[in-house]
């Protein structure tokens, strides 16, 4: 089902994306899925179901907190928001992600990975 232009998420990056989206304010699962797709300009193929185990895991690790609230359309939905711990985690993961991409990028641009 994956079309060639879309790619699967590397291991562990889904958590980072979720934390990033939730950082913008309390939001329910469906909205998180929408936003991930929107922000990544539909380039990422996230099977929407796989979002939930990740959400529950983050909640379990106390990086996210959840409560039930009404949506604009008046339905009950489970809203997630960042905890203090989640905020710290997002910060440190964002930094390490940036460093990683920088290093990998440098390495890949270097002709043949020649150390000189």
């Amino acid at each position: 089902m994956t079309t060639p232009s879309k790619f699967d998420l590397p291991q562990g990056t889904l958590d980072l994306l979720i934390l990033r989206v939730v950082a913008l304010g309390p939001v329910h699962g469906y909205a998180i899925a929408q936003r991930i797709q929107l922000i990544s300009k539909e380039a990422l193929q996230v099977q929407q179901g796989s979002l939930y185990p990740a959400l529950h895991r983050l909640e379990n690790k106390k990086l996210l907190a959840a409560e039930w609230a009404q949506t604009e359309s008046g339905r009950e939905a489970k809203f997630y928001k960042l905890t203090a711990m989640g905020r710290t985690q997002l910060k440190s993961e964002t930094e390490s992600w940036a460093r990683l991409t920088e290093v990998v990028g440098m390495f890949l641009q270097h002709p043949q990975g020649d150390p000189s």
Partner: protein
Amino acid sequence: MSWLMRLIRTRAMEKELDKELRFHFESQVRDKIEAGMDPSEARRIARLEFGGHEQVKEQCRESRGTLWLASTAQDLRFGARILAKSPGFAFTAILVLALGIGVNTLAFSLYNLVALQFIPVRDAGTLVNIERRSPENITPGIPYASIAFYRDNAKSLSAVMAVMAGAPVTLDQDGQRVNPSFVSANFFSELGSSAAAGRLFDVTREDSPASPPVVVLSNRFWQRRFNSDSSIIGKTVYLAGKPATIVGVTSPEFAGLGSDHPDIWLPIEQHSYFVEGSKPLSDSKFEGLIVMRGRLARGVTPHAAEQELLALTNRLRKLYPTVIWDNEYIVVTPGAHFFPLQLGGEGLGGGAAIVALCGLLVLLILGVACANLGGLLLARGAARRHEIQTRLDLGASRLRVFRQLFTETLLLAALGALAALPFSYLALRLILVSTDAPVWMSAAPDWRVLIFTSAMTFIAALFFGLLPTLRMVRHRSGSDLGQRFVVSVQVAASCVLLVLASLLVRATLHTLYSDPGFGYEQVVAIHPSLNEHGYSPATANRYFAQLQERLSSLPGVSSVSVALNPPLVNENVMITSIDVDGHRVLIYPNWVGSEFFKTMGIPLLRGRFLLPNEAHAVVLSESLALKRWPHEDPIGKQWKDSQDIVVGVVGNTRAQELNNTDATEIYYAAMSTADNLPSMTVLVKSSSTPESLFPQIKAVANSIDPKLYPTITTLKAGFRKNVRQVEQIAAIISLLGALALFLAVVGLLGLVAYAVTRRTKEIAIRLAIGAGHAQIIASVLRRFAWPVLFGLIAGVAMTAALSQIIRRGLYGVSGLDPISYFGAIGLLVVILLVAAVLPIQRAFKLDVASILLHSD
């Protein structure tokens, strides 16, 4: 929220999870419809985008961290339902496991009782046995002089006790004698025991030979003899004619030192008073057996105590050069166990080998039980293939299905263990009651037993459940290698147990009905315990000369002799050894009078018998002569590097170890000046019934020295006592063998029945086209022929190896006795054949036409 809270809230959380996912899905569909998609198409696409609803839920539960608990509960419920659905299988499986685990629990409980549990004494951890050893000698006893020296000088011991079992003595005018134990005055206080009535020994009051003579009664003896009457405290009783005051009674739970259970206790300081003429405390050559117990000082290890005691022994040697052996050393072992197992011991003390053997035998039973169940589960696995496939197709992960199936297995094992515990408890109760065990021994499992049982249960589950479960999940079909393996294991283990059982039964019969190499039926042993009554070699010599002369003049007496170690009735076995080509041979030595061989009916094979008082001469048993000089004439050879010359070879006897056909003996002449003369026993051969001589023997003994109360027994009685032990062991092993056979039969019945059910259609077709019954039976059984054969070969090989242990450690059975092997294998094969043919026979009774019509 803690995981416990989450677990409690499971139901609510399930609802929330469902609601959350539904909200997502419905929002997704709504958006697609708003974007102009057809409603049914919108649902289809949304479902594709979302993924499997149930899988997502399962993953969510897993990330919540309670899945394992929730799903285990679910698996257990499911497993229980599956078992309830096939009660026949469940019953068989639980029965088989209960027997397998139960036998192991029982064996371990017994081991735990005698060797691991502490006897109920104060501060059991620091109580130690102290024994002396040398490369040539093993004895539990220590001369009192050494004990006193260690008591006064050892800093590693905070207390030292001395205990000596005395010969039975008369009490007042009672016909039956009582067994006394002479103990140091600190015995009761060191063991932390209390009195049920009166008081026990007091270190300040019973500290010298001059203290007023006192006696403490054991609770059982008090009940039996005095009907638990407290008014007897302070009364005077006559022990061997000597007055003594009863000062107290031990409490019912007093365990003593474990395996000793005398009727009365007397202060060892007063030994010379009760046993007239004895000097156990001052005479360094006293022959009685005094054992030493001690308490380790705070923080001292047994090893450190051994080091200190060894140094003290070397100082002692200067004081008593004749008493301390060459290279003597001291062994300190934990002392608060009922039966201290000396692991790594030799000869009679080869406890480790026996324990290992028993352990192996009961493990074999468990092995048969597991193989058996494994077979049943494999068969069931094939039958449940459809169910498992369905679950895998519905999206369950293999791991999840495996876990579910293995939970079922564990549930089965746990049920088996639950059934095993009462079984083991009852059996143990029965054993304790029938052996008149001390009251403190309880059949109720303690923590060690429970841990052991749980571990065994888990191991059993791994053994019988892992292979079938893996095969079910991996969904291998076709090959029935697993089944064949299972059959082999069952047959091999049953084979080992059956052959061992028949070897032991044959050994018992052999002991019972074959010639032990000497005539015991007509012989009476008279043990006057001169050594305990202060006789010197010279006075003992006079006593024996008189006694022998008077006895031989009695009508009905055909011969009389002295011997240091009378066969069958002596309490302490002496062992010495010789190295032949670096191989150690254990020898039973004996010092005998010149008429000994005639009295015992031991034949002379070469040379001559010993002469009265002959120095520097030995007579060997044929077995010993053959071991020492396999190819030469032993007569005239020098024995070891002594001055002793071999003058004769006599027939082998199994005098000291009835069931050891390999026993070797060496005989020295009893010397009229030897220190061991006062310890000797007189043997009398009667020409009529030996018991009829008792009154005359008593009269003669009394007329020579009325102070003595000789113990008079027939060798026949000793023989019966010996045989009873061998019989008991053979009975236990036979029971295990029968159990193994029963399990193997159940297993094979199940497997063949299953094989027949699976091939009912094939059998029906064969019958329809006219195949004979024999042909069909052969075709079904062919699959089992090789595994059975393989199992038999493996079983025989294992038994042959094991029987060497038994031979060395226990019974001296001929380890390769062909009758036992063929008998056991024959029995096994016949029973297996019957077990295999029965289910096939049933298939023949089926209606061929209806089978062919109705099978798909």
